[in-house]
């Protein structure tokens, strides 16, 4: 029945070598120089060295300054790491800024409502603070997660592209937050949150929000690199059709990614309240774009299929380092916006050229 003889197979196996493109294993060094994260890391290191050398008394490279840079990058880092997964899967979430405001408003209102009677709260007394904080954490996670779930349902059930869905839900979420607060911020948030968490330092050195962001980023870096979950994320972004045919439950996976993004937004919202002891309903307009820029600068493809959490982490540090460096140099920090814009364009252009040169 089977008319195939082994020699035939072997013959063709060897013949095509000279006609096929030379695809071979890379050396460790080649792999390193091919990774955008490596070049972004090099650029960041160069920036730190230059600012360190030219700043007065080398103030830039003092540990306290470097840790402050990390602290200021913490929130965007949490958002950008989640965004790396979504972008890797070929999705976007433009609603993270509004979601963050909504999470911070709801959790702040929960704290203020539960920490004591209205009279006590106004006079700065919070007898039920521990209970109120526990509820506030749950409220923030629930709000963020549900927001993500709504995004996911709209994307997977109505088949509307995530760009439009999250543009719309972003507006809706911000609207709800402003309706809830009458356009103002939540008052009487206990300062204890700042002292115990937002401005607290682990071992009197590392800001607690940076520790939180670092743990989250490290964990999600490992998930992307090592697990089937990470592999299926980029598989969906690389070819949704291929993932479907391979039996990947694509819609269910996308729901997980949007909900994960929402939960991360909830955590970032809690950090916001704890750091500043206020909500910031007028801010966070550029959070989503800052996160996306960090992801793209870090070497992930905006079209999906390639996702580098490590690159993203470095990508979030660049704008903050630039801003801090310029302040120390007594240059107006507004130049940071210009510089980051230029870096974004250069990074993407260079990345495209390298990728087209490879294939």
């Amino acid at each position, binding site marked *: 029945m089977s008319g195939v003889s082994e020699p035939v197979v072997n013959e063709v*196996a060897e013949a095509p070598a000279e*006609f*096929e493109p030379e695809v071979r294993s890379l050396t460790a060094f080649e792999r390193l120089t091919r990774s955008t994260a490596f070049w972004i890391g090099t650029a960041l290191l160069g920036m730190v060295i230059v600012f360190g050398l030219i700043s007065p008394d080398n103030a830039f490279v003092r540990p306290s300054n470097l840790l402050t840079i990390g602290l200021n990058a913490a929130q965007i880092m949490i958002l950008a790491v989640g965004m790396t997964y979504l972008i890797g899967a070929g999705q976007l979430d433009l609603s993270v800024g509004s979601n963050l405001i909504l999470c911070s408003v709801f959790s702040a209102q929960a704290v203020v409502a539960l920490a004591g009677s209205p009279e006590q709260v106004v006079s700065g007394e919070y007898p039920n603070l521990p209970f109120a904080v526990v509820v506030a954490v749950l409220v923030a996670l629930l709000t963020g997660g549900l927001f993500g779930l709504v995004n996911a349902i709209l994307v997977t059930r109505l088949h509307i592209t995530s760009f439009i869905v999250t543009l719309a839900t972003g507006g809706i979420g911000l609207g709800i937050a402003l309706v809830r607060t009458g356009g103002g911020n939540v008052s009487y948030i206990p300062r204890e949150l700042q002292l115990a968490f937002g401005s607290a330092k682990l071992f009197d050195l590392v800001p607690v929000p940076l520790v939180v962001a670092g743990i989250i980023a490290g964990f999600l870096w490992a998930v992307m690199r090592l697990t089937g979950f990470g592999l299926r994320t980029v598989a969906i972004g690389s070819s949704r059709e291929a993932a479907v045919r391979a039996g990947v439950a694509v819609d269910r996976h996308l729901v997980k990614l949007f909900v994960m993004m929402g939960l991360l937004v909830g955590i970032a919202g809690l950090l916001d309240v704890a750091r500043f002891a206020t909500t910031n309903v007028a801010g966070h307009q550029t959070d989503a774009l800052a996160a996306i820029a960090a992801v793209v600068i870090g070497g992930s493809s905006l079209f999906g299929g390639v996702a580098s959490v490590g690159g993203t982490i470095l990508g979030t540090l660049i704008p903050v380092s630039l801003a801090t460096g310029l302040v120390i140099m007594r240059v107006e920090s507004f130049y940071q916006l210009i510089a980051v814009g230029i870096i974004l364009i250069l990074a993407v252009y260079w990345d495209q050229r390298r990728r087209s040169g490879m294939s």
Partner: protein
Amino acid sequence: MSGVGPTVGPGILPGAVPGASAMPDAPSASGAAIRATGIVKHFGHIQALRGVSIAVHAGEIVALVGDNGAGKSTLAKVICGSLQADDGQISFWDRPVAIQSITHAHELGLYTVYQDLAQAPDLTVAENFYLGRELYRAGALGRLGILDRRRMQGETRTALDHLGIRLKTISAPVRELSGGQRQALAVARATAWATTGLILDEPTAALGTRQTGMVYEAIEAAAGRGLAVLVISHDIPRVLGAAHRVAVMRHGLVIADLAAAETNVDEVIGLMLGSSRVPGA
């Protein structure tokens, strides 16, 4: 599909699922691995399939040829689960099956290779090979969803070697491969997971001569491993060279079922176009 837990290795690998590697001398060596009988399929008023029957035996390559609109792709879609027949019966290994979906067909051991290279170009060869059936590390790490990349790469290499596909690296993204290499990889992947048969719909339509040769070698190797192979192609000379039998379709029916060795390109084309008489008719 599930995030964790041990995954069964590819069927053609040593020590893989019982019944997969043992398929050449499978249950019904006398019967057909894939048999479709009296399949009818309407699209509105158009009768695409008019009670068509076809059988493919284990280890056999059957070429399914016909002019455009003869119903080849519709028949393939019915067998591979992406279309439901209006009437008729499909059996695998002489056991009637009601194939609900492509995934259901996969569970029954039937895989389809598509014309448009259904692969994730950014993933490596090994990652594509195992996508959807990833191998996990043993023990607690595996339960955490940690991949066993070393084993995935090693077993991908073994599977490709068995089909005579030589790639210098399996850790390169698939986008860096040639079209022929990618299609050969697709055939290898389907061969590895299939236990019943393969359907290939125009597997070499986009490929050059040498790359087409590479894909057909992989197809022949798949049949050599005991799978029933159904190939749809317009490349009559090439498919005639590889197939054991040729089924010619016209107007929703198989009008001729010929031994490939006893026919020729002119006869087949004549039958396709309706200018030759059906032998024995």
